[in-house]
């Protein structure tokens, strides 16, 4: 099974409780950001966070990385945790 296949076919959201529309938009945004700033997680996260703040309201938090553990309190229906590109994990949540 080629990694490329995995990478191109799907980006499964590992855990999410967002409504459908929001989820799709957020996922697309994350993918765009990560692809654009493949080398720089911080900038990618910044881009995601700012866009989310504009679109969905203030106080979003974004974490991008390859190895981390987390425990967060998030507003219900405002969490997305997904994987990208075979090695990146992205966690986006809202908590004001």
């Amino acid at each position: 099974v080629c990694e490329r296949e995995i990478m191109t076919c799907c980006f499964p959201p590992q855990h999410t409780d967002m409504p459908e529309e929001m989820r799709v938009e957020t996922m697309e945004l994350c993918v765009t950001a990560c692809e654009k700033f493949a080398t720089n997680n911080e900038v990618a996260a910044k881009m995601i966070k700012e866009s989310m703040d504009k679109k969905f309201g203030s106080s979003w938090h974004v974490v991008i990385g390859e190895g981390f553990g987390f425990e967060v309190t998030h507003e219900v229906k405002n969490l997305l945790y997904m994987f990208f590109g075979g090695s990146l994990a992205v966690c986006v949540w809202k908590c004001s």
Partner: protein
Amino acid sequence: MLLMSVWSCFFGQDEEDGTETGEGDEWMQGKTLIKPLDQLDLTEAELKEEFTRILTANNPHAPQNIVRYSFKERSYKPISSVDQLAVHFVLEGNLLHQDSDEARRQRAKQGDVEEGGGEERADSVESKAGKKEQKITNQFNFSERASQTLNNPLRERGCQTEPPPRANFSATANQWEIYDVYLEVLQKQEKNKEKAKAVPKKDDDKGKKKMMLVETQSDDITKVAKVAKIIERMVNQNTFDDIAQDFKYFEDASDEYREQEGTLLPLWKFQYDKAKRLSVTALCWNESYKDLFAVGLGSYDFTKQGRGMLVFYSLKNSTFPEYIYPTTSGILCLDIHKHLPYLVAVGFYDGCVAVYNLKEETLQPIYKSTAKSGKHTDPVWQVKWQKDDMDNNHNFFSVSSDGRVVSWTLVKNELVFTDIIKLIIEIFDNVCRPAACGTSFDFHKQIDYLFLVGTEEGKIHKCSKAYSSQFLETYNAHNMAVDAVKWNHFHTKVFISCSSDWTVKIWDHTIKTPMFTFDLNASVGDVAWSPYSSTVFAAVTTDGKVHTFDLSINKYEAICQQPVVAKKKTKLTHIEFNPVYPIIIVGDDRGYVTSLKLSPNLRKKPKEKKGQELPKGPEVEIAKMEKLLSLLREPENSNA
């Protein structure tokens, strides 16, 4: 000059002081006199010169000769006294006398600013000051106008919104976790592809599931129904326990003492509430289920024609029928198929025939004849099932007052009729009157095509299925309508007939005159051969009696004459022997069916001689009958 003088005084004092104190002198001797640079150098003589100074109050700077112009004298005059005041220092002070105007003004201002709590004096001063401070208005041309706008009352409102719900979430993002998830997703995708191929099967499954659900629902009901039925039967058995015991085991012991006579032991009584006003018009035992029998209910009375009912009873439950089929018209006859116990043919008063299927849930017959399909125009008095025809279709015959004997065939969804024969009455001058009314018929047990028809005129015709226009034989049987014609179960030649002319006659079909004639003193409703003996038969009369005959015992009289019904006015209409058990059922015109057990005397079989083999039943019976007949025939032959 002043400078010098001060300086020299100072010196002078020092010198004087020096002489007084030796210590000072020592201190002073250390120093050398320093002369300022601009000091005058004077000789000692000049230094010792004394000058006299006089201190006066005169201001040295004040001018001594001030002259002012006097306008009076038009000349300058010198002022005598000159002001000698020399102001050395002026400092403007900021203290005011407390009674001065300025002070008062200041106090007024202070009184406005300060609040309360002052000395009385201060207050009074302040109020005075306040009054005085009011705006001075134009006394001549000033009018004050004031108004107050409505101030809306102030209200406090508070609100607390619910904070958006929060939840905790935790996870670990590792390379291996990510990898695992990706693998899972791939596998799922593959499965989905496989499922996509098997999508059309899903619909079937759904259909099956629905079927299952429906079945389970109905299963629940039927399970309860079954159990309820069993319990009902148990209850009935307990209630009628003695009857059940009698039915099975009771043998009338008193028969030993009565030589020939027997008795009928009443067992269960079957009645159905809704059938109370109807009379029993047909009875038939089920061949396969020996305890099940059918009762047709209707009315013989021409004026009281209404609805009818087809009711099935079981001996196991005498309180309520097993099957109930209400019909629009009164039933006059019925027959249960010998091999298919669920098929019942019924003939109605309105001339229709119908076939019911007991297996079906509906209360409607599966086939019914209509005016188009050749139903009879008059009441159908008898129906009988036949063997399946060549196409394996079921068929049955019916006879009716309109003179037709019709064969009905069940072809798929229809009832196809075939007129077999039309009953015609012959008159001596060969004018045939059409349509004699058939009231009963019976088919020969062995010879399939042979059957007998009894008519309203009292004649019995022997017919064949093959010949549709002619009778094989005609017997002038009775003076009134022939109510029943029955072939003997064993003897192929013997049949019995009964009529409303109070008589029961036994015939040999080869002979035109009856073998036996019995007068029963009342109109005979029905007669039936017993299935276990060729010489035993029973007849019911309208006076409520059952007459049982055994020809091998008594050729002239009944061996049992027993009233069966409580009320004397009840007419018995039908009788049937159970094919297996020694019981008979009797129907009356009040809708009751009574079951009776035959006592041993009525069921006698020929005594076996010791040592002889037990012969087979039918042959014995036939032989028995033959014996009787031969006895009769010989005298007849001799007479003839």
